[in-house]
């Protein structure tokens, strides 16, 4: 990536960012603006189908994602995806349809259109770490996150499935750590970076979610983290929104603010709280940020 | 005055963990006659040996005691080292403080005290050690190979190709062994006969190989380099020289319904027969037990139709004595049978599988004959009971093997692979059939082996079910297989048309008797014992006798061939010298004291004791005394224990040495 080139992307926010994860959407747009990266939302994008679709109807899942990829073709630039689940599905679809001619034929029939499939699907992390580059990112920092201990949580889907060209190493990714360290934060080594939070069962089996999410919170706390950073609205939903409930069930206290990566990077590049939607977080991050002199 | 060096080895931590080696060395230093005592981490290592050699020259040592592992492990090493330092090797002894001490005791105090005792004993013994000059014996550069299976054939060809004569003895009428019975071989699925028969023909045509089939070893005498072997060549009733192998006799023989052992008794043969068409030699044998002529005196058709007049009803067994310098034992294996065993036998049969009485429950070798294109069914897989093609076939692994209750605890090593092969052969021949395999583990170490096994499942659609079968029983024309799938955790039942049992590999019947003739050791299953499990895997403890193939333990074909070639290489090494240095542990007679009672001669199993006349200058006979031929003496010392006046002494184990040890206690 040459530093001279202006970066511009098609943007697929996904359903959550237009609802419960509004602050992820907000902070993404503001951060990219601050970093002078162009971002154009794909018009009339659909739900990717997420887990429920591929869970019971893979053809539907592939078709929905393919439709979105087709819509994104109309917008300049690679496709930037914020949600790990959407990212995983879109990337998987593109890969599967390139590799599997039978499925491609079926999907083209369902869409009643030939597929190009030559655009790139990129997660925000990829754009920050590689397209923009860690040096340029560091150069943009106004308030280094010095002294903030961050537990980077990838969740299960960010680096999966394994045989699809991937964001980072499947079992030992470092991209989140690279990004947040570039803006001055400290990261903690911990055990549950890749464990599943059970997002699929948020609606149907919250008990399962509480059990799995608790283990993640517990591990982050044990590793001495001040906060958790995520790149997925579903993980965020469980870790942040359900944190109080979990503390109640397990009679414990975590008080771990859960940031989207764009929020934390945003703080570092000097965006004010309102542009990052920090107030929308359930676990109040302000005391922590204040204590570190970041607000 | 002796100047003894005592060297105590830590053996890494193997000794020092339980024995206080410093204390042992310190104790040794206090013993009279000990000039120096030291300990070292690894005495057998290069620096360890250097230390020893240096001490010998610097301390002017006269004797050496190495307190370390068993002399069976490293006595040679240290004696060689001592020799390198200019001492006679037999002035060095080992005190076994590892196998006999540190490894078998936990209490450090006790073990250390015992180690001190052992070292003390060996110091006293070593003081009495004398210089023993090397003894050399001539080497007869001919080799005997016992067993004409793939192991024996390979060993014989390798030795013969190196230019040495080989005598190959096979018990059956033809060479070929079990490998000739196999249909195809894993992991390449090439036809066994296609790769075997050219080798058999090579044996028959090799100018350096003398082949005795239908023959057995009667007697083995002598020792390394100088064995005399008596071979019993059983009466074939057909003259091998005149027979042309035309086979007319077999077509005319009226006895046609004799089960053919080569075909696992599912095919039939005549009374005058070759076991299979590609037999080597292609000379028939008359099976006298089933021949009408021999039973009733009437018939003799074969003789009448034989053009060259080769049939000879009068032929007798002949005994042939062969002088050889080395022996390769390659007697192979037998398959375990599930039939009822005699009461008290350590090996049991499988009553739960019907003791072999369910006709369509067969063993793997029978399946080989069914699948073999040259087999009794022409390669069609059919049920022995009604000739129908089995559509549901069940294979069961580990029959006899790994079944302590049945008397065998070892793994037969080849069954996983041959069962995988069977499922493939079956799938190739019965397209609409389904093969199931009950197994406990799949053991497939070997080049391309696991891939082969996976192929049987992934491509050849065999269904493997992890779990042992509890019982088999006949129900109508089906065999009910009661098993379980332990991965699912439920019982499994299959109504099979045929069941194939992967029965264990056992040594040949009578392997122990042959071992006794050869003077080699064998384990509790009668597998022959190698001299060292790791470092001398093809040699017997008895010098000049080597092992090849499954007689030593279960092996597949590539391993067998490797071991056979290794044994052949060992034989060639032995034959590379004209004379052979042997351990000078032999008996000597003190003629001055001998009264000529010849008790020594009476107990000598080797005939090494001779009568020697002592005459005065005029030639008058004064007396007759015993005298030991050191070339023939094997060094057992039975003569010395028998001699009332102890006028015959075994070098290396003299009364002085032994009494010194007893007195050291």
């Amino acid at each position, binding site marked *: 990536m040459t530093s001279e080139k202006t970066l511009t992307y098609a943007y697929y926010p996904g359903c959550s960012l237009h609802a419960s994860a509004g602050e992820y959407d907000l902070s993404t747009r503001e951060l990219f603006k601050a970093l002078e990266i162009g971002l154009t939302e794909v018009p009339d994008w659909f739900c990717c189908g997420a887990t*429920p679709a591929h*869970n019971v*109807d893979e*053809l539907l899942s592939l078709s929905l994602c393919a439709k979105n990829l087709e819509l994104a073709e109309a917008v300049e630039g690679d496709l930037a995806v914020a949600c790990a689940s959407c990212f995983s599905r879109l990337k998987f679809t593109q890969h599967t349809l390139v590799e599997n001619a039978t499925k491609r034929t*079926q999907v083209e029939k369902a869409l*009643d259109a030939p597929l190009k499939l030559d655009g790139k699907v990129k997660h925000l992390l990829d754009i920050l770490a590689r397209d923009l580059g860690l040096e340029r990112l560091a150069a943009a920092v106004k308030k280094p996150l010095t002294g903030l201990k961050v537990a980077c949580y990838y969740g299960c*889907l960010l680096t999966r499935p*394994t045989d699809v060209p991937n964001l980072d190493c499947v079992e030992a990714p470092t991209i989140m750590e690279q990004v947040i360290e570039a803006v001055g934060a400290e990261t903690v080594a911990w055990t549950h970076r890749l464990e599943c939070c059970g997002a699929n069962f948020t609606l149907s089996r919250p008990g399962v979610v509480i059990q799995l999410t608790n283990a993640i919170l517990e591990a982050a706390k044990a590793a001495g983290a001040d906060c958790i950073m995520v790149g997925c609205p579903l993980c965020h939903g469980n870790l942040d*929104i359900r944190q109080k*409930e979990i503390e109640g069930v397990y009679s414990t206290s975590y008080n771990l603010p859960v940031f989207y990566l764009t929020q934390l990077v945003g703080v570092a590049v000097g965006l004010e709280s309102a542009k990052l939607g920090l107030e929308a977080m359930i676990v109040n991050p302000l005391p922590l940020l204040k204590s570190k002199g970041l607000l | 005055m002796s100047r003894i060096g005592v060297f105590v080895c830590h053996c890494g931590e193997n000794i020092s963990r339980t024995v206080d080696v410093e204390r042992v060395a310190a104790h040794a230093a206090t013993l009279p006659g000990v000039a120096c005592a030291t300990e070292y981490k690894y005495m057998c290592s290069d620096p360890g040996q250097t230390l020893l050699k240096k001490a010998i020259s610097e301390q002017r040592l006269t004797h050496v005691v190495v307190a370390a592992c068993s002399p069976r492990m490293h006595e040679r090493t240290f004696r060689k080292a001592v020799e390198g330092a200019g001492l006679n090797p037999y002035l060095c002894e080992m005190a076994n403080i590892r196998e006999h001490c540190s490894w078998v005791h936990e209490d450090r105090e006790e073990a250390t005290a015992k180690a001190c005792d052992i070292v003390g004993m060996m110091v006293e013994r070593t003081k009495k050690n004398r210089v023993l000059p090397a003894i050399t014996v001539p080497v007869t550069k001919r080799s005997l190979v016992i067993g004409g299976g793939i192991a024996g054939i390979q060993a014989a060809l390798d030795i013969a190709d190196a230019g040495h004569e080989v005598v190959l003895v096979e018990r059956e009428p033809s060479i070929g062994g079990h490998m000739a019975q196999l249909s195809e071989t894993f992991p390449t699925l090439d036809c066994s006969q296609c790769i075997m028969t050219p080798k058999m023909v090579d044996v028959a045509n090799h100018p350096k190989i003398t082949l005795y089939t239908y023959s057995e070893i009667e007697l083995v005498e002598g020792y390394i380099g100088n064995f005399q072997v008596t071979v019993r060549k059983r009466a074939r009733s057909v003259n091998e020289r005149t027979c042309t192998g035309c086979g007319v006799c077999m077509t005319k023989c009226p006895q046609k319904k004799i089960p053919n052992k080569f075909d696992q008794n599912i095919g039939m043969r005549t009374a005058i027969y070759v076991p299979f068409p590609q037999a080597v030699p292609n000379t028939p044998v008359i099976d006298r037990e089933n021949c009408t002529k021999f039973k009733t005196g009437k018939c003799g058709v074969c003789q009448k139709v034989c053009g060259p007049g080769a049939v000879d009803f009068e032929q007798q067994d002949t005994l042939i004595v062969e002088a050889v310098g080395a022996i390769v034992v390659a007697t192979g294996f037998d398959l375990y049978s599930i039939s009822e065993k005699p009461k008290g036998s350590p090996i049991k049969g499988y009553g739960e599988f019907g003791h072999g009485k369910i006709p369509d429950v067969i063993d793997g070798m029978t399946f080989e004959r069914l699948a073999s294109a040259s087999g009794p069914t022409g390669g069609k897989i059919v049920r022995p009971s009604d000739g129908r093609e089995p559509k549901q076939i069940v294979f069961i692994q580990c029959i006899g093997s790994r079944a302590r209750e049945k008397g065998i605890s070892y793994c037969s090593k080849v069954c996983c692979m041959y069962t995988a092969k069977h499922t493939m052969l079956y799938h190739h021949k019965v397209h609409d059939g389904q093969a199931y395999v009950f197994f406990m583990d799949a053991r497939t170490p070997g080049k391309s082996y696991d891939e082969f096994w996976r192929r049987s499942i992934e491509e050849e659609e065999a269904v493997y079910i992890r779990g042992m079968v509890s019982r088999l029983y006949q129900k109508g024309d089906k065999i009910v297989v009661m098993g379980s799938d332990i991965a699912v955790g439920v019982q499994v039942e299959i109504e099979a048309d045929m069941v194939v049992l992967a029965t264990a590999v056992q040594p040949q019947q009578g392997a122990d008797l042959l071992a006794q003739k050869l003077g080699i050791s064998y384990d509790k299953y009668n597998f022959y014992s190698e001299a060292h499990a790791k470092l001398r895997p093809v040699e017997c403890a008895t010098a000049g006798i080597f092992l090849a193939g499954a007689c030593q333990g279960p092996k597949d074909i590539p391993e067998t061939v490797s071991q056979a070639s290794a044994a052949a290489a060992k034989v060639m090494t032995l034959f590379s010298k004209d004379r052979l240095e042997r351990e000078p542990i032999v008996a000597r007679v003190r003629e001055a004291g001998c009264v000529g009672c010849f008790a020594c001669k009476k107990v000598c199993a080797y005939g090494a004791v001779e009568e020697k006349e002592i005459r005065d200058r005029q030639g008058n006979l004064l007396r007759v005394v015993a005298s030991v031929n050191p070339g023939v003496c094997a060094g057992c010392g039975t003569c010395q224990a028998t001699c009332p006046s102890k006028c015959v002494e075994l070098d290396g184990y003299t009364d002085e040495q032994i009494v010194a040890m007893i007195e050291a206690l």
Partner: protein
Amino acid sequence: MKKKKMVISQETMDVDFVRKVEMLSDTSVRRCFQCGKCSAGCPMATFMEHPPNRVVRLLQLGQWQRILAGRSIWYCASCETCSTRCPNKVHLASIMDALRKLSWDAEGASKESYVQLANKLFLQNIRSYGRQYEMRLAAVFNVKSGQFLKDLMLGPKLFAKGKLKMFHSKNKNMAEIEKIFSRIDDMRKNGEAL
């Protein structure tokens, strides 16, 4: 069913079903040699009566009824840990997808209903609105599952934080979505897709 003796024969092993699974999941069940690594790493294994390896094992034996009769496939979180770590490249997560799909086709005899309900509503939402609207999804789920008060405490808080939106608008191109759904239905009717 779970403990019942398995009578195995060419008739009782439903090879066709297994072929369907293999086609849908684009993976081979025969490749599995039951090492158990999938079950070892599965975050949901403790909630399942057939742990993942056993699901594959039953498939190998064509015993799909035993799988579908249980809840296991519905307790899969689709985290793909199993597929990621399988030494034999058996895509167990995809196999799970295929099994759930076939379970729906078979008019699911499964005991698990909440997960299925959530999935159904999710897909209905897409067909009706093009995107997910969490509040609606949650509310309808609670009504349909009879758990009116579930997560009641979370509601006001989320609402206050702007995380739940009362109103939502349909995509402009809803007709295209509907077409995709109906074309897939047609393809299935015509046997052009599974």
